[in-house]
């Protein structure tokens, strides 16, 4: 068991492990976040981060006091409340199913714990980032699944069938790739009116991002199919009367799996950044639902950047996620090149 875990870490590298940790963290956002994403405190706009202090055998959270309501400056009031672990806080439904109100940590009633500061409405940035990150993960995983399925099927059909089918499909992918991505996204977004439910918007964003993503993947798959089709083992299979399905599933796909895995990993950042960009422009997920993009868009004005620079943290989180996925792709590529099974012939 231990060696298997070790091998896993070796294949996915530090980046993979970190991504798993981040993914698990966002999965349990309801429990790990001290507050709900829409839990407001209008008396604490742009409150800075408060750091719990250790004394008398427990953690204490200082209570902030607004000293300058014009410029939204705060200073510690001298009072403090204890920080509890595994405590009862705001109630939530984990994944929309499990009803609970237990949180990993929470500050006692009048106090409020802001690990990374608050936004204009006094909502906890840390909690919102957790929820926003979960949205990014979910959206990119679903989006990748869609674009990956379309891209692989189109690529397989085009590469295997050849002829006019190939030409038609490739022209289609050229059309998709020739439209500037952001314009296409904005155009697709404008199909649904503004102010529809967040579920619809999520579907539209995911759908449009996948609609853009499949094209380049299908060309990669097509190229792979064409290069593999000329190899002896495929020719032999075809000559011995194997059906196209058998050839595709038994000979072509298993040989492409590393490339596919790598291109899938490397295509995830496009989804994360695409969603964030759309939400940043106000075309994506709208308030009060948090997404990494619309949290960042709150800090668009210079005034906000000055009084609450921590809101830029969502941008940093996007960068971290993108770096990790890029790194994971690279690690997988290296593992595929050198490791066993990377170049195996079935």
């Amino acid at each position, binding site marked *: 068991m231990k060696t298997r875990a070790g091998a896993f870490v070796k294949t996915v590298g530090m980046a993979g492990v970190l991504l798993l940790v981040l993914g698990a963290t966002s999965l349990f956002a309801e429990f790990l976040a001290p507050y709900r994403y829409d839990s407001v405190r209008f008396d604490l706009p742009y409150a800075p981060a408060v750091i719990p202090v250790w004394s008398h055998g427990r953690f204490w959270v200082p209570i902030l006091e607004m000293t300058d309501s014009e410029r939204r400056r705060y200073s510690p009031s001298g009072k403090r409340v204890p920080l509890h672990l595994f405590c009862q806080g705001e109630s939530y439904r984990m994944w929309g199913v499990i009803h609970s109100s237990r949180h990993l940590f929470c500050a006692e009633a009048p106090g409020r714990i802001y690990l990374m500061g608050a936004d204009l409405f006094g909502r906890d940035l840390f909690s919102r980032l957790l929820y926003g990150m979960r949205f990014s993960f979910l959206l990119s995983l679903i989006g990748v699944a869609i674009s990956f399925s379309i891209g692989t099927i189109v690529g397989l059909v085009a590469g295997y069938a050849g002829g006019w089918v190939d030409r038609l499909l490739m022209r289609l992918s050229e059309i998709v790739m*020739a439209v*500037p991505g952001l314009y296409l996204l904005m155009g697709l977004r404008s*199909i649904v009116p503004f102010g529809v439910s967040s579920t619809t918007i999520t579907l539209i964003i995911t759908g449009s991002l996948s609609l853009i993503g499949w094209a380049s993947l299908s060309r990669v798959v097509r190229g792979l199919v064409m290069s593999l089709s000329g190899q002896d083992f495929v020719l032999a299979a075809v000559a011995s009367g194997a059906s196209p399905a058998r050839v595709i599933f038994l000979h072509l796909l298993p040989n492409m799996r590393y490339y596919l895995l790598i291109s899938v990993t490397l295509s995830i950042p496009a989804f994360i950044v695409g969603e964030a960009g759309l939400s940043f422009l106000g075309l994506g997920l709208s308030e009060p639902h948090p997404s990494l993009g619309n949290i960042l868009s709150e800090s668009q004005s210079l005034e906000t950047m000055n009084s609450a620079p921590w809101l*830029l943290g969502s941008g940093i989180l996007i960068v971290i996620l993108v770096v990790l996925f890029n790194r994971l792709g690279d690690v997988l590529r290296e593992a595929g090149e050198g490791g066993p099974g990377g170049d195996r012939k079935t």
Partner: protein
Amino acid sequence: MMRAVVLRVSHMGLVLLGIVFLSFVMMDFAPGDFLSQMAMNPQISPRVIASLKEQYGLGLPFFEQFLHWARALLHGDMGYSFSYHVPVSTLIGERVPMTLLLTATAVLISWGTALPLAVFGARRAGGLFDRSLLSFSYLSISVPSFFLALLGLLLAERTGWFPIGGARSALPATAGSWDRIGDLLHHLILPSLTLALGSFGVLYRLMRSSVIEVISQPFMTAARGRGLRDRLIFWRYLFRNAVNPLVTLFGMELGGLLSGAAFTEMIFGWPGMGRLMLHAVMTRDLYLVMGGVLMGAILLLLGNLLADLLLYLLDPRVREGT
């Protein structure tokens, strides 16, 4: 050769037709159009709206409306912008030079720095210089353009070295044309730098790996063995071979000249195509959206074509192959 070009151009025509048709379908799906918003404005008489409707064939069934627009397009008429109340071609004609100024400067900066640095880094691959630039490239690839632009804005505000957003500041009427140009350039620095920073990473990594591959080729050893001058070895053997894979990328950069800077433009308030397009989509300005998409797509396709032609000219292997 000519045949290949003609074939490619006709392909491009087909793809363009597809794009135009699909985007028309897309806009048709969108509920309401600009005229229905106009109709709610009591200051505009129903007569004006009816005449606009007739002139642009908006009341017609889908296919006829499409043909109407496409026929006008062939005569160089891209239609009318309902939100700006000017012809689309005028609007695009105003914005395109500004966007090109921004993106071309950015391309000059990124290529001008990344290529020499990559050659330098590749010669001492794995050294401190190379490794730090590699990590920098990683960051450059991973930072989304809108975040980078926000950071740039923050820098401008904190240091006061650069104007915050816009392309021009209010100059006195007496200001000469040199002052105006200087002012424009001052506004240009930060947006073009952030754009260049964003494309530096890809360039550096690609050029570096390409140079490393070429350096270890036998013909390089042979050239050195024959005692050729360093300069000759560099330009004729190393550079010409190493730059090959970048030509395709160059085509893509050319293609992205119009559409690639959208976020940067929006954040810095640069009056280019990106902001125009966002406005057009938000207000459902049908023909403006179509015009913008068309221009962007044409440039993308032209960029790819140009890259292939360049490759043909630069690489005898490609020439012999076709």
